[in-house]
């Protein structure tokens, strides 16, 4: 193992760039979390924000799970919890469960046409909606209205192709072949 790495002998700069590249999916995830708090939907006068973080989690869990560990997902969820005023742990829990689910069902959606990939994302979004709605309802002790959650999931699924395209470009251009 070590013998094979010896001739590589990287300079500090290349080491750093390697670290940056390895961290890229996580950084993209964090940017997506922040983006879901930027009022972009209000440009067109809508108030329902897509779950950008879910797109990142789904995409990287399917395409590059080795560069996107469960810790990254947990941190993304925790950041969402801290930035939103909702119950602490709601998104950390939901995202971690979604990540584990996607990871276990990954073989079903790898190397499939994009339409199937998209449909799988819609199903993931619905599962996310159900989990988060259930957890939030239990925490608040009341049945929360379903419509905002449903709108949230539909908007997320509708925007997904754009982000899948962007993530795909980043993956093919920047990340080393895996």
């Amino acid at each position, binding site marked *: 193992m070590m013998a094979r790495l010896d001739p590589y002998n990287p300079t500090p700069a290349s080491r750093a760039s390697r670290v940056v590249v390895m961290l890229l999916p996580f950084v993209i995830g964090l940017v997506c979390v922040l983006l879901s708090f930027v*009022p972009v939907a209000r440009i067109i006068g809508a108030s329902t924000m897509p779950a950008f973080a879910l797109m990142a989690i789904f995409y990287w869990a399917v395409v590059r799970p080795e560069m996107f560990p469960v810790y990254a997902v947990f941190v993304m969820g925790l950041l969402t919890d801290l930035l939103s005023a909702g119950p602490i742990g709601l998104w950390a829990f939901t995202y971690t469960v979604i990540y584990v689910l996607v990871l276990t069902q990954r073989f079903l959606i790898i190397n499939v046409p994009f339409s199937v990939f998209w449909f799988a994302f819609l199903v993931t979004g619905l599962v996310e909606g159900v989990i988060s709605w259930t957890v939030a309802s239990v925490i608040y002790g009341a049945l929360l209205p379903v419509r905002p959650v449903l709108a949230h999931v539909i908007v997320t699924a509708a925007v997904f192709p754009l982000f899948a395209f962007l993530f795909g470009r980043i993956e093919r251009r920047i990340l080393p072949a895996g």
Partner: protein
Amino acid sequence: MPIREISHRISLVFMLSLAAALLLLGRAETYVFDNARQVVTDLAAPLLELASRPVAAARRAVERTDEYAYVFDENERLRAENLRLMAWKDTALKLEAKVARYEALLNVQVDPSINYVSGRVVSDNGGPFVDTVIVNIGREQGAKSGDAVIDTDGMIGRIVATGAKASRVLLLTDLNSRLPVVIEPGHYKAVLSGDNTDWPKLEYLVATSSVSPGDRVVTSGDGGLIPPGLPVGLVIQTSDGNLRVQSFANHERLDYVRVLKYEFPTEVARQDPPALLTGPPVKASPAAVPAAAPVAPEIPGAPQTSASGATTRPPATPPASSVKPKPAAVKPVTTKPVVPKPTTATTVPAAGAATMAPVPDPADADEDEVPSPPTEVEPVNGATE
């Protein structure tokens, strides 16, 4: 390889349990997480503000294009509205003058003007279960928890947490939002409670209230956190018959907002009762005294006996039984300048006492109570009309 696989599985299970534990911990250790929230919000606020600038510019561009498309219709509409508003302006000016005179006349304690800080909404709610936004006004600008936040159309929410440079605003539509309101024409009190839908509910409305869709809802100021009279919205009725409120402020177009630095007026300056309630003012008493010249020497003593209580009066009456009814009638005049506060309480019973007392000399009571208030009120009333 199997070891790696196992450790991977263990880490998955560990993080899942940690996430579940966090749900419980978040409920138990609210203080720790609230602090963490402050720190994260403060750190993220500059980033969010930076990101929200192009977004705001883009939104304005979109709105501008929208406006261009309807510029002719909009112009027509504004002309018509302007005509209506001019008529309203006339009415408002008249009413303003009238109210100012009444306030001066009644010596009303005018609400202190409210200072405010303007800022921008820099974040969205970030999820379907909460309706909060972050504004770039923090403790350094004087915002504090509980402050009302308004935009040009009306109230949008209140501050629930403040950092050094950014604060979180709980919108009226949020599940946790409760706001004491008044529904205007009938002055019915209710609590506006959010439930994560676009239209908050009206709760605790008395069953006999006749609130109808279209009524105006304003803040009641109950509790002293929020100034009274801030416009909130209009009552609407949903298809299932519930009364809800459509807010004046458009939650989808939140941009510039004001945080009201309202202080509940606890240190109110002492206020003398209005002249109308206490009867004739000081200057009127010299006029009354010459009219009742023979009774004048009795006046200083008489009020004290009457003020001390009804039981003490009977023993005091025998020496000056002929003069007794007169001090009782004149009493309000003399006590007023000396002790204003008790007289307000006593003037109302005094009217009742006067109705009993007048039997001996109704002329005096008439002279004191009926003619003098009109001399005070009439000139002012005449001036207003």
